[in-house]
């Protein structure tokens, strides 16, 4: 990571890794869909029109309409906004918490590290989905709650990665000389340990976005989604009773979700290849 981030270097890095390239192209498409949603959508997705349960292509509805007369294609376009929002907000929360907890455990070490590591291990193997489900059922199912709870429960893997980085960084010469120069532990953690060790967390967080989207979809499918917004999980849930008569109601929102999850997964995988020096040496 001693090369400068010039546009040429970024271009060469992205085109040099298949997964990263595919993920980047997918991400650009997703961002365009989110920004251009009002242009791309043919109808207002919140409008309960007179055409209910239209077939694909009927009355100008590309993917038909649902039982409430909403245009399915437009709902899918707007659903991208929800999915990306969930992915980004919850991933940021889990990244920030993970980086701090892991950084503190690895850098300060000692008993604190022992306790934090054990807690991380416990949380890593617990079925988080059921915890999220329980909290959402008790505290209310607004989109904000869903994002916060997913973020609050997904930090352990980030913390584990950051801890390992901090453990090795604290023995490095530049950190030791900073200690000798009299910088406080907090300064060292913020100025040297976190900026230099954050790379594995970046790729892990990107992959975590896939998980967040799937979790939100799963919650919506259980009827725990925010009823005031449009989400792909809810669309699949709403289409379930009509699965044998109107298969497209559930099928297309699902495909949209798979595409988005795949994009973040490829992006995370690609970033992992690029940011992990061990991997690039192997090639």
């Amino acid at each position, binding site marked *: 990571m001693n090369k400068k981030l010039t546009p040429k270097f970024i271009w060469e890095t992205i085109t040099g890794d298949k997964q990263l390239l595919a993920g980047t192209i997918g991400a650009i498409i997703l961002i365009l869909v989110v920004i251009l949603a009002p242009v791309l959508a043919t109808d207002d997705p919140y409008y309960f029109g007179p055409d209910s349960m239209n077939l694909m292509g009927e009355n100008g509805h590309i993917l038909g309409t649902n039982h409430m007369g909403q245009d399915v294609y437009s709902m899918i376009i707007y659903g991208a906004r929800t999915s990306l929002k969930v992915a980004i907000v919850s991933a940021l929360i889990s990244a920030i918490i993970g980086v701090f907890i892991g950084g503190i455990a690895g850098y300060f070490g000692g008993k604190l590290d022992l306790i934090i590591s054990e*807690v991380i291990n416990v949380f890593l193997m617990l*079925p988080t989905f059921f915890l999220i489900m329980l909290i959402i059922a008790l505290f209310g199912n607004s989109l904000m709650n869903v994002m916060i709870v997913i973020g609050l429960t997904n930090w352990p893997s980030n913390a584990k990665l950051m801890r390992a980085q901090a453990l090795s960084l604290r023995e490095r010469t530049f950190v030791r000389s900073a200690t000798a120069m009299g910088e406080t532990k907090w300064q060292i953690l913020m100025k040297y340990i976190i900026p230099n060790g954050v790379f594995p967390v970046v790729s892990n967080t990107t992959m975590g976005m896939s998980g967040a989207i799937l979790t939100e979809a799963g919650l919506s499918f259980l009827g725990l989604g925010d009823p005031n917004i449009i989400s792909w999980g809810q669309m*699949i849930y709403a289409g379930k009773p009509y699965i*044998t008569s109107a298969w497209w109601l559930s099928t297309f929102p699902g495909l949209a*979700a*798979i595409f988005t999850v795949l994009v973040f997964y490829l992006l995370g995988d690609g970033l992992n290849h690029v940011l992990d020096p061990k991997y690039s040496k192997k090639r």
Partner: protein
Amino acid sequence: MKRFIIRRVLSGILTVLIVFVLNFVIIKAAPGDPISTLMGKDNKDPAMRAALEEKYGLNKPMPVQLVNYLTTAMTGDLGSSMIYNKPVTTMIEEKLGATVLLGLTSALISAILGTLMGIVAARREGSVYDFVSSGTQYFFNSVPSFWLALMLIIIFSSKLNWFPSFGYSDARANYEGMAHIMDVAKHMFLPCLTMVLILIPTYFRIAKSSVLQVSNEDFITTMKATGMDEGKIFRKYVFRNAILPSVTIFGISMAYLLTGVTLVEIVFAWPGMGRLTLTAINQRDYPTLMGVYLVMSISVAVVMLIVDVIYAYLDPRIRYD
């Protein structure tokens, strides 16, 4: 080995304790006051409130309440369902069997298939098979389980009419013995297929990367240099070392498996924990939901413990760490 097992059991107990404490914190932090619910909306009688708080031990300090909660829960008393007025443990006991049957079958099939597919892909790295199977694995890794379940219903139940789309067995036909087993297997086929497709990628990826990694180890290169038969090297050394991570993944993927099974059960109306969870959510039956979370977490902790012990038995490096 003994020391290793003791250490693992202790950390398993810690896990269960943390789950209980989490559950307690969630109840306490949740909005709403159970006493005012019990007293009714317009009843503000302070004497009655004090009496009720005394009865349920809610006037005691928090740590005492926590200890009380833990001791009751440890005896297997998880409270009663608010809707059915049945003990939560009884309700879970009735449903757990079907979930274990579906979950375990899918986990075993996917572990074996996924590992084998991954090993073959690694052996033929760069081949068409490797390309296709790796691509498919990316796809299925991104598929929501419940969506896949619906798609399989469209294809195999609605269009082809090969398999039933819901239930555990045919309620009208009173099959006995072998016929009953075949009937259940037929009903289990689609839920199981969904889970297997969802779980294979995890095993595929780990098996492929570990075969590739072991093949590059120095001792393998040395054996090849001595002119040893390549097939023999693979069977005796690469294969053995490469299936070890699959054992660990079996434990680690338990939580993922249970989440998937729950959602898939709901689609197929499989009479397991998933159905219990869904009805508990719809009726806001909190004691049951907490019970589900507790039982799921404890099951994961127990499976992880067993898997870790097996792993330590298979790989001496872990034991003497």
